[in-house]
């Protein structure tokens, strides 16, 4: 398996509606899947959508090399994701993948994964990958409300799952950073991986910094190409403006100018 990028029509082999705003797609590759690392993403072509000119980026949610499939977890936001929500088994979806860097393996077993919204997408793949390396992370997931809490079984197989909901209908009430694990003097984790809305990642990064805990975040950004040539997706880092689609999407918070 080599780290080569592909442009391919993958066949939709499964569509699972998780709740009103979220669904997963299982996609079968016509050729042997390349090596895909947790944190990498794909650029999906939304066909038959007059208002969607560019591709849309989605994290790889999980990979099954036996079945030669990968999965995406998609939150319906605008025209592109609404169109993708209409895909049915048997349809095709054109992807450029795998793109971007990946989360790095931790030098500790005290690992926390924090995800919110569609930011949970890359964390399942990461958790499974950590398991293969004998790490069983704690997984803190934030949802809006009980109805949106989903795939907990899959996460539970990888580690201990903690939940917050904005309205308190499941798990602890509040945002992920309000969770009781963060309310102690000193948090018990040596490495945090985080993906979610900007504000959430910044709040988690702040906690990590205060605790001197190593922390990697997966940034969102508006992308035109997704493979490094348009320079539209930059983020300021310690090395100047870097491309989120190539040097990222995963950055260690040490490298980001977040306070």
């Amino acid at each position, binding site marked *: 398996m080599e780290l080569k990028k592909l442009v391919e029509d993958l066949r939709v082999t499964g569509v699972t509606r998780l709740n009103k705003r979220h669904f997963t797609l299982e996609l079968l590759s016509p050729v042997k899947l390349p090596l895909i690392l947790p944190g990498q993403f794909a650029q999906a072509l939304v066909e038959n959508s007059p208002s969607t*000119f*560019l591709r849309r980026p989605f994290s790889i949610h999980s990979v099954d090399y036996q079945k030669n499939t990968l999965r995406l977890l998609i939150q319906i936001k605008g025209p592109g994701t609404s169109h993708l929500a209409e895909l049915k088994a048997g349809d095709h979806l054109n992807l450029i993948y795998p793109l971007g860097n990946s989360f790095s393996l931790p030098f500790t077993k005290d690992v926390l994964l924090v995800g919110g919204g569609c930011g949970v997408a890359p964390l399942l793949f990461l958790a499974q990958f950590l398991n293969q390396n004998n790490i069983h992370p704690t997984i803190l997931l934030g949802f809006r409300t009980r109805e949106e809490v989903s795939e907990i079984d899959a996460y539970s197989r990888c580690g201990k799952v903690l939940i917050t909901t904005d309205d308190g209908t499941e798990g602890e009430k509040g945002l992920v950073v309000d969770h009781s694990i963060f309310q102690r003097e000193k948090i018990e984790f040596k490495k945090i991986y985080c993906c979610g809305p900007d504000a959430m990642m910044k709040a988690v990064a702040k906690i990590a910094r205060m605790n001197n805990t190593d922390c990697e975040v997966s940034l969102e950004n*508006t992308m*035109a190409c997704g493979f490094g040539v348009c320079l539209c997706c*930059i983020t300021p880092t310690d090395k100047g*403006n870097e491309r989120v689609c190539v040097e990222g999407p995963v950055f260690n918070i040490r490298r980001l100018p977040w306070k």
Partner: protein
Amino acid sequence: MPDLSVNIAGLPFKNPVTTASGTFGYGDEFRDFIDLGRLGGIFVKAVTGKNRDGNAYPRMAETSSGMLNSVGLQNKGIEHFCHEIYPRIKNFNTNIIVNVSGSTVEEYVEVAERINELDNIPAIELNISCPNVKLGGMAFGTIPSMATEVTAEVRKVYHKVLMVKLSPNVTSISDLAKAVVDGGADVITLINTLLGMAIDAERRRPVLSTITGGLSGPAIKPVALRMVWQVHKAVHVPIIGLGGIMNATDAIEFILAGASAIQVGTANFIDPAASVKIADGIESYMERHKIKHITDLVGALRTE
């Protein structure tokens, strides 16, 4: 088999399909997707005198059949290009052409002079049209006398094929074309992006950090075609046409309007293999229409 080769101001291209500056990186990013040797040429990202960080984020907005960008010439400068990038790309089996930008005449001249020394770069494309740079970048491409001047100064130090890329944001594209031909341009490239703007109505803010940016993609194709046609009638140097080319039919349209070669820009983002598919599609078109030489199609629009 039809003959797709063209000769532009003495420089041979194996086919008329090249890729547009700023949309193709330095070419190597596309190696997973296509055989670069299948292309007529590659126009690499703009190079300026010194390192430029470009504009702040957000730099991109999607529009109907197009996109706005305000990348702002981010690049590491001519020194870095010569030492780090040139060695990496100089043996690509295609014409590597460098897009040269600057804020002053001196900067253009400095960069052109350095690139003149690089054996495997047979041509430069002066970008006097980028709408994103506050200092002069816009003015060079919109005032004929300044366009003549910058071209003429570069001409003095640059001894290979000198291409000048024009901005569409002008009242008379023919006047600008004549101005750069007067300055010594061998080839004219048209068009760069149209100046546009996007607004997020919910947040009541501009989408781009720079408020305005450059519009590219199929939305601008009618304007680009019109300008190629106008310039084809106004001057006698070869034209390289671009603006919204997504497939072989679009490419043929530009060639019929008067372009000797075309560039594929934004299409590379949607399909990284677009350029090679376009070359294949041009060949099929020629077979179907029994055209032996692509040069027979250049400017062959029937208007009688």
